[in-house]
């Protein structure tokens, strides 16, 4: 599946939210879109046969954050990368759970580690870090310390 074919097969109503369908190493294509129309893009991509959501990840680019979705199509036998940018001061995007139920845990993880809030997520709570953990470790501003540098041995329960 070539990026041009993909761009043609996406419904034209999505044109305002699509930022580009371009070739990308390792994937059939990368689909960049505005976060406002996220759910529509998800539905359209899902209807194209990309039924398996492999992963959701967040990348902190300091000035903004990027959410990447990797989806797989059993017909086309290829991966597709969806990517959207969210501003760092308001990192929220629509949840993909209604389209791909497997997004549940991936979004919980992206929420706690990268600090991206997924609207209308059914169950947004801590997955890997303890409950009440107040930091987002995968942000660039979160620095790694040698344990000696910690002043007080404290932890979250």
């Amino acid at each position, binding site marked *: 599946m070539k990026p041009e074919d993909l761009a043609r097969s996406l419904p034209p109503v999505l044109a305002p939210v699509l930022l580009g369908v371009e070739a*990308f*190493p*390792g*994937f059939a294509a990368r689909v960049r879109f505005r976060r406002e129309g996220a759910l529509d893009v998800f539905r359209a991509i899902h209807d194209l046969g990309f*039924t*398996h*959501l*492999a*992963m959701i*990840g967040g*990348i*902190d680019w300091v000035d903004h954050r990027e959410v*990447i979705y*990797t989806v797989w199509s*059993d017909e086309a*036998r*290829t*991966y597709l*990368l969806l990517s959207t940018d969210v501003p760092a001061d308001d990192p929220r995007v629509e949840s993909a759970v209604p389209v*791909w*139920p*497997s997004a*549940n*845990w991936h979004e919980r993880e992206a929420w706690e*580690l990268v600090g991206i809030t997924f609207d209308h997520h059914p169950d947004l709570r*801590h*997955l*890997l*870090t*303890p409950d009440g953990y107040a930091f987002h*470790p*995968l942000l660039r501003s*979160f620095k*790694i310390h040698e344990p000696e540098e910690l002043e007080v041995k404290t932890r979250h329960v």
Partner: protein
Amino acid sequence: MSEMWLNMGPQHPMTHGLWNLRVHIDGEVIRDVDPEMGYLHRGIEKLSEDRHYNEVVTLMDRTCYVAGLAWEHLYILASEEALHIAPPERAQYLRVLCEEFQRIASHLMWYAAFVQDIGLMTPFLYGMRDRDLILDLFQSYTGARMTYEYMRVGGVRNDVPPGFTDRARQVLDWLEPRFVEYDQLTLGSDIFHKRCDNLGVLRANDCVTQGVTGPMLRSAGLKRDLRKDRPYAVYDQLDFEVALADTADVTGRYLVRLEEMRQSVRILRQVLDWLDRHPGPVMASQLPRWLGAPYAPVGREGYLLKRNYPKGVGFSAVEEPHGEALAYVVNEGGEHPYRVKFRSPVYANIAAARHYLVGYRVADIPPIMGSVDICVGEVDR
């Protein structure tokens, strides 16, 4: 007994790792489950941002400690793509050798743990015994039993020692009759079928919706194997079949894993023949100096800072013993990866627990979760 929540974990013989399965039971029937993860969250993705590309391999071994070499392969494929480096062909064959041996070792470890879950004591010992033979082979060329640090960006650390292929063939010759023995010990018993047939059923469409991959998916009859569908390394030059079953239950997963071991033996014989016939270098010659020579001690000093190295993004997908593992490596021109993101197959398989556990009994939890083949290290990372 009225309805109650039962915490199975973090210290529970069923878990095979460090996690907590909260089960809502009515008598002995499961009404709801809620897996609680994160007890082994070591922040590997964050630590990777603080390490050189080759140092991250150390973490990869510990990400999934029963399939370390498969995860090394996953990470190395992604970072080579991000760094625009191509490994020599012999290194690729050696990586396939590692991955397939690792697949057998991981499945044997799974077999040992799984049979113990249904109360069989003896095959645990047999599985561990045969797994040790493979670990001996690993030890002969990587120097370690479990944490290998063998693969490098641009190739592998060293070639296999002389006489290795013959020893490996001996191990394969020993293993093949053992698979028959394993089947006799489990499938030969009526109690095994009573326990495992029609248990933990997860049909193909549910697998796809829930993101379940690997032997669980193939046991539901869906033929998806990244080694065939999206061939990486040299899998397109090797001849093998995708193990399939159509029962979608615990027995199906058992059959798929046993068949995968047989197919791995088949792949390994081809790889060993190729290695005998094609000597050559195992590291790429045109490596950027800041990556270090393959034998250079790994340390924080002694590397030249890199300047103006092209940026890039690497993506790789590997059919790990547990399922499809994905890696996404962002190279922003520093000595360390800017961001490393992994997708663990077991992560999605556990997330779907509600769909294959509810409705069964408490006594069914160990065989079902055993058939998922849990490796908590790669879930929590």
